């Protein structure tokens, strides 16, 4: 009998690859008897759907499209870039 922890790992694996039938069967038997793990399966599926949504058009849902380099970061990067440019060894 698989533990809930083992079932979680196998369910995660099953999202990425087709598993052998005996592994699937063991998980099914566990799920028949375990409400907590049935919920976990639904949540894993929801996670996948959310990831797809977020990956495709989710940038509208988030603020990612408006994200900009902060002034601080720009200034820091620029300073670093000029250090390299002004490095006398570069002009040797």
């Amino acid at each position, binding site marked *: 009998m698989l533990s*809930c922890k083992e079932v979680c790992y196998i369910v995660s694996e099953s999202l990425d690859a087709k598993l052998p039938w005996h592994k699937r069967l063991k998980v099914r038997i566990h799920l028949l008897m375990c409400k907590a793990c049935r919920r976990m399966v639904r949540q894993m599926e929801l996670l996948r759907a959310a990831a*797809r949504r977020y990956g495709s058009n989710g940038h509208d849902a988030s603020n990612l499209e408006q994200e900009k380099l902060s002034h601080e970061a720009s200034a820091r990067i620029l300073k670093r870039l000029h250090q390299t440019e002004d490095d006398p060894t570069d002009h040797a």
Partner: protein
Amino acid sequence: MSKDPSDIIAVQPDPDRWLQDFGDILFRYALRRLHNTAHAEDVVQETLLAAIQACASYSGRASEKTWLIGILKHKIIDFIRKQVRESTVDDINALSDATADGGIDGLFDARGHWIHPPRDWGNPVKTLQNHQFLEAFEQCLARLKAAHAQVFSLKELHGQSIDEICNELDITATNCSVMLYRARMGLRRCLETRLTGNDQEELQ
């Protein structure tokens, strides 16, 4: 302005203009893969530093933007490789040690039973349409261990196969599975706390 390809001369490094014209584009591109502001800023800097060095080899055929994004892609993969290398040993140890999950995540007891069984998240279709859910998803992704978030992102947000990820990051399929497992369990738990409150979930 007509331009004969044979006239193209080596581009002079112009990091100020690159940063001004393309800084935000590069940053957003990096953020979509790394999900962490500081990490995204770091790879933008690495990209521009590499661009100064690589200027002589820029043929001018690709647009500057395409050229810079090409460099950025390599820098992102280098960055993820480094994170993954640092994380892999911990992950394998944690998984094989029956008590480690209890210590790290507080998910399971020593016999592998749920300490806090998953709670009801309500109607999945409604949950998914909920604007706040996707916002929470984004925040939870940012809170994962960097390597886990990055591998999860390659697989689930950017649709790469396990084989592609293993090749690109030079890891085994088992490493990859373990990181995806930990990312999913971390996201599940983080989202649950946000969706249903944290009364019994916070174990300090």
